[in-house]
């Protein structure tokens, strides 16, 4: 591999001139992370608040009012009263409420009987996750109501075993704290691929690569020139994203900033390498664009552990996730942001990123060289 500093400098300058002339690259590197991270950082959340709830008491009484008031007190629910079960069921079908809490006519009387009263809950199960959260909230409210009722009657309610829970790394259990670092990884995957997916294909298509090849520059220099230029551009976008995550979304960064920078550089190399590989193998902007749309976004979104836990997937699919570059960076950022410098997580994932970067850049290099003959 022959490298000449002056020629390389000239090539990097040429790439930068091209970037500046077609402002879409600058838009990709700086505006896209800004726009997408702000939009998604606010928009993406799994914490259900003010779940719309239908309350039905067939025979309103002091007891039913007391129970309902325990549901209205928190920010978890936005309750509405319905006169009968029929109306409430219609509201559930129209999607106006997520769940129905139904107290039968004998609720007050049953409370005094030894077997106790039943509180009927119907939840819309289509969105299974929200349904589960809603049921969890209702159980919490029900437990509090029981305890309050017991103490009002001068008793103490002791459960045989009570749970004392501690959630490490994210004590408020805010989904934003794990989603925003993951978003940084997803957005940078897109940007890395977008920046480079068409670059080589464009030069092949327009014949400018052949023109470059008759000059003394070597293929390695051409590739290195592109990687340096887009790496610098991508680093800017990455710093912007991390800054937004920390300062705008107040996600704690418990690990070291420099370790994050190091891992981010490795990831960026792998992401750019993937774009260059697509570009080199397709040799045609149209197909390269199609592959970039198909192979980058949805796999990174669904298979990286950004939102769906990889450990919950079946074994074969877990195997497939190892091919996704974003997977390794998502694991690194979730740990670096929330837990700290845990080498047991960082080291294997960083090595995997290094390997992927090497493989992609290697494929690009070989694929570009072949056509010289």
């Amino acid at each position: 591999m022959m490298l000449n500093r002056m020629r390389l400098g000239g090539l990097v300058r040429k790439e930068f001139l091209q970037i500046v002339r077609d402002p879409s690259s600058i838009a990709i590197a700086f505006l896209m992370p800004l726009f997408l991270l702000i939009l998604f950082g606010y928009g993406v959340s799994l914490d259900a608040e003010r779940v719309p709830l239908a309350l039905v008491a067939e025979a309103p009484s002091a007891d039913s009012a007391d129970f309902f008031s325990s549901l209205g007190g928190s920010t978890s629910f936005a309750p509405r009263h319905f006169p009968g079960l029929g109306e409430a069921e219609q509201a559930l079908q129209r999607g106006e409420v997520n769940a129905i809490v139904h107290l039968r006519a004998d609720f007050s009387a049953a409370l005094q009987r030894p077997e106790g009263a039943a509180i009927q809950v119907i939840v819309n199960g289509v969105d299974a996750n929200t349904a589960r959260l809603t049921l969890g909230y209702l159980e919490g409210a029900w437990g509090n109501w029981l305890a309050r009722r017991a103490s009002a009657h001068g008793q103490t309610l002791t459960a045989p075993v009570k749970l004392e829970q501690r959630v490490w790394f994210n004590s408020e259990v805010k989904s934003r704290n794990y989603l925003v670092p993951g978003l940084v990884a997803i957005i940078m995957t897109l940007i890395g691929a977008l920046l480079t997916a068409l670059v080589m294909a464009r030069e092949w298509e327009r014949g400018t690569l052949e023109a470059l090849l008759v000059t003394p520059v070597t293929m390695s220099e051409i590739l290195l020139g592109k990687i340096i230029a887009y790496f610098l551009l991508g680093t800017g976008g990455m710093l912007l994203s991390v800054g937004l995550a920390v300062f705008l979304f107040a996600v704690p960064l418990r690990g070291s900033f420099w370790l994050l920078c190091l891992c981010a550089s490795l990831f960026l190399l792998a992401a750019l390498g993937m774009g260059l590989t697509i570009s080199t193998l397709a040799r045609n902007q149209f197909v390269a664009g199609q592959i970039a749309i198909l192979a980058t976004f949805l796999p990174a979104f669904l298979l990286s552990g950004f939102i769906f836990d990889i450990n919950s997937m079946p074994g074969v699919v877990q195997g497939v996730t190892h091919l996704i570059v974003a997977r390794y960076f998502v694991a690194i950022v979730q740990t670096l942001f929330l837990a700290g410098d845990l080498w047991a997580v960082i080291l294997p994932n960083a090595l995997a990123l290094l390997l992927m970067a090497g493989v992609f850049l290697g494929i690009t290099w070989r694929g570009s060289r072949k056509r010289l003959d």
Partner: protein
Amino acid sequence: MLIRLLALIRKEFLTLLQDPKSRMVLIVPPLIQLLVFGYAATFDLKHIPYALYNEDGGAAARQLIASFDGSPSFQRVATLQAEQEIAPLIDRRAALAVIHLGPNFSRDLLSGQGATLQVIVDGRNSNTALTALNDIRANVDRFNRNWQQARQLPVAPARLESRAWFNPNLESRWFFIPGIIGMLTLVTTMLVTALTVAREREQGTFDQLLVTPLRPGEILLGKALPGFLIGMLQGTLILLLATQWFRVPLQGSVPTLYLGLALFLLSGVGMGLLISSLALTQQQGLLGAFLFMVPAVILSGFATPIANMPAWVQGITLADPLRYFLIVLRKVFLEGAGFGLLWPQLWPMALIGALSLTLASVMFRRRMY
């Protein structure tokens, strides 16, 4: 005129399908992606990997532990002897939760004053943490009820009896697979439409097309129909896979589903062609495709509910055709909803389609100069 149009449509199909790489890209990946994503997209925890740290040797403690070991939702991955072993285990994600019984657990439980079970959960993925905590709490509640019944202790005066409609076992796969159908269809329409006009502009063939007797409306139709037809074909294949392979129950009617699919394709093709008509280069077209597709998917309510978003983001989602199509898919699949209940979702897609197609045909002309 019809002959002219047919010739144009034929040409569009040829340019899309004649390149074997392009042909591959359109047919095979969506089916593979549905298979892989269909298994990947789940919030259900099948086996919660947990570690046990038991400082109590009593029989009551063993009874509680047996309730965890006997449940299919839990899988014990480690048994700890000292407190220092907890942190490394959680840190490297070997266990999701640690269940800790203190030295006085059995004594407290038998004395009737209540024993404490300490649970430590890895919160890096807060949703997984919450689901695991819910399952652990449900197991402890069950243990408490059995304990009280066996000893004839007084039970709580009221109990919750919950039922889930439309998805009785709360399988999140039933929620996600219809959503994946919508996402993959959107991606295909982008693949087919977003770069077509830009490519012709770059190669100069679009100018040639404009000087033929074809009117902009006809060019638009010629560009839109292949995307629409390929989307229909692919949508059908994906629907078959979803119902026959993943066995997602289809409660509603197939014609309603296809009406939704047709209107969604109209809006998707419209947005793709609008992006394409605005782009001067394929690089810009690709950027536009991503700038539309990525927010359209992430803010569609596919994984994170729209109800959780702040009001201004909810406002933005009103322009997202995928938002409406996901509701149609889920309501038809799981709730068996008919046309009347779905009308509020159908007309916005038609409107987005009509607006974007009109704008695209105007831009065909404008962008010439």
